[in-house]
């Protein structure tokens, strides 16, 4: 009689332990054990070729990228500049879609066990796939977070928060120089991963055209708010210099378009991805 009870007790303990592990997902772990600034890189799934997704992802992590954002291509990416638009068009022509992506990512956690992986894209393809289906498949593949720039905060809270939580997927929201302080606080409250600081006005991959000091003042203003979540700065970060500059004001930075450009027209995309990350970090 004692033995089964102990086993059940052990089961409860194990579940609680696993529960903690799950709640504290890879994104949070990456920031917790941080002893350096983090490099988050974005690339488009199925680009430059359909089956480059996993080899590029592995090359990026092997070269030292700390977080990975996989872009889910969309026909009308409103927040993106020409480089990511073009890569999305190519990826769609290559036959990339949600089903193919999840098939490609099926065993990714055997090969890339620790690096946080986020999916970034637009709401419509996710809606058509079904938000619950999407979250289930993403969680099963070992995805940690989701960035959907056109998902409104209120709609997230009313319709999706519960589903995201059930699958332990962390949403990431954007903050811009125009975002009001009260809204930044609300975004911070709704987040338990990191805040995506958009560096200035414009779509992805744009040049920084702000007057000297304007951007730094904005970064400083956010830093002074002492938010509960760490921050990564994105948009217009393209190389070692801009990465290091952004890192003065945040826990790290995000590079997307510059990496996509480095993959354009190359025969060996993983090698180019690896070279690019090295050029930023070394």
């Amino acid at each position, binding site marked *: 009689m004692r033995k089964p009870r102990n086993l059940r007790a052990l089961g409860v303990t194990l579940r609680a332990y696993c529960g903690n592990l799950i709640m504290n997902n890879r994104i949070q772990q990456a920031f917790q054990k941080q002893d350096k600034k983090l490099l988050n890189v974005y690339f488009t799934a199925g680009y430059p070729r359909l089956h480059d997704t996993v080899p590029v992802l592995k090359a990026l992590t092997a070269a030292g990228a700390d977080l990975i954002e996989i872009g889910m291509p969309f026909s009308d990416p409103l927040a993106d500049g020409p480089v990511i638009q073009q890569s999305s068009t190519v990826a769609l022509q290559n036959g990339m879609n949600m089903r193919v992506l999840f098939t490609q990512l099926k065993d990714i956690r055997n090969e890339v066990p620790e690096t946080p992986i986020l999916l970034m894209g637009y709401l*419509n393809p996710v809606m058509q796939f079904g938000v619950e289906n999407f979250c289930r498949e993403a969680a099963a593949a070992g995805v940690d977070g989701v960035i959907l*720039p056109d998902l409104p905060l209120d709609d997230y809270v009313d319709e999706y928060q519960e589903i995201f939580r059930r699958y332990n997927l962390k949403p990431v929201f*954007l903050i*811009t120089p125009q975002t009001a302080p009260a809204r930044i606080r609300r975004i911070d409250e709704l987040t338990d991963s990191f805040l995506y600081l*958009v560096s200035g006005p414009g779509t992805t991959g744009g040049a920084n055209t702000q007057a000297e000091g304007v951007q730094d003042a904005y970064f400083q203003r956010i830093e002074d708010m002492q938010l509960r979540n760490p921050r990564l700065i994105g948009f217009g970060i393209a190389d070692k210099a801009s990465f290091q500059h952004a890192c003065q004001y945040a826990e790290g930075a995000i590079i997307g378009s510059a990496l996509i450009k480095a993959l354009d027209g190359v025969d060996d995309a993983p090698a180019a991805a690896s070279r690019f990350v090295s050029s930023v970090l070394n």
Partner: protein
Amino acid sequence: MTPTTYKEPTARGYYGQFGGAFIPEMLYPNVEELRDNYLTILADPEFQREYQQLLRDFVGRPTPLFEAKRLSKKYNTRIFLKREDLCHTGAHKVNNTVGQILLAQRLGKTRIIAETGAGQHGVATATVCALMGMECIVYMGSVDMERQRPNVERMRLLGAEVRPATSGSQTLKDATNEAIRDWISNPVDTHYIIGSVVGPHPYPDLVARLQSIISEEMRKQLLEKTGSELPQYVVACVGGGSNAAGAFYHFLDEPSVQLIAVEAAGHGITSGHSAATSVLGKPGIIHGSRTLLMQDEDGQITEPYSLSAGLDYPGIGPLHAYLAAEGRARFISIEDETALRAVAECSRLEGIIPALETAHALAALGELGAGPNDVVVINLSGRGDKDLETYMKYADSIK
């Protein structure tokens, strides 16, 4: 349950399940500013005084309600044409741009951007910018720049910069994408004058209110000419749906009035070359709004087709999606060829050369089932000068 009013969206901009504001954070402050201020500004007596004065003295309103006797005889019903083609710049679009430029001034904006398909909204925007001395940039698909060249030249003459949209199908959808990206890059000084009842809340409601002058006048004019403010049918073409929203607005809550929305079937509904969103679309998100949308099973937006640049749009305004879902409006789709024949018919029977968009509404006359005692109002949304090259090219279909 029948709603008490079809006119007004909820506080968050929903008409039933359609509408909302699905925008990236970069646009949030702009859209919020507009949302928080537009109703107050529209209701302001000083705004109204200036708006009404410009509609009268600059646009040329009220536009006539013309009884089309020869068309009436042919279709054995009583047909009136609401002459929006007589508005300054040749289409209803200017009703909206006059209102929005006054709104932009009150919001302290100094730079105006717009998208355009057929070019009529672009011309109407360039016109009010010239009037008010404001910088004007119009995004237009490069395919549309080719097929609506006279309007490109008109915009340039008016001092606007026309920027080609070269992505996707290079038509209205892509021009709208580029305008939105411009707004993301210029969040402080710029107002985006959307030309249709599309986009994030509050645009669909704002544009519908500014176009509602059309049905406001119709009611008065009908009372004068027929003894009743209410016709049996109101017919309008729908791309995004601005002229239809204006023509339907003050009849939306009059159940005895049948509202007929006419979409472009292109080469035919099942041809793969069509823009009949109410038939081919399913709920999805385009340009910040949840609406009926032409898309593939992966949620990628598909390229619509219509010979008419103004109807060549893969979505419809959320109000129209709601009217379709509720059965409040009847949707009819008309093929290119049929629309071209209606161009000839209206030209020769009434001495009015309609725009190709408008011709879709005229072509629906044969499908209404209207009787001799019925009153039918067709919103003659624009004149056909801009389409002359197309009409010459398809002279065989027109004769």
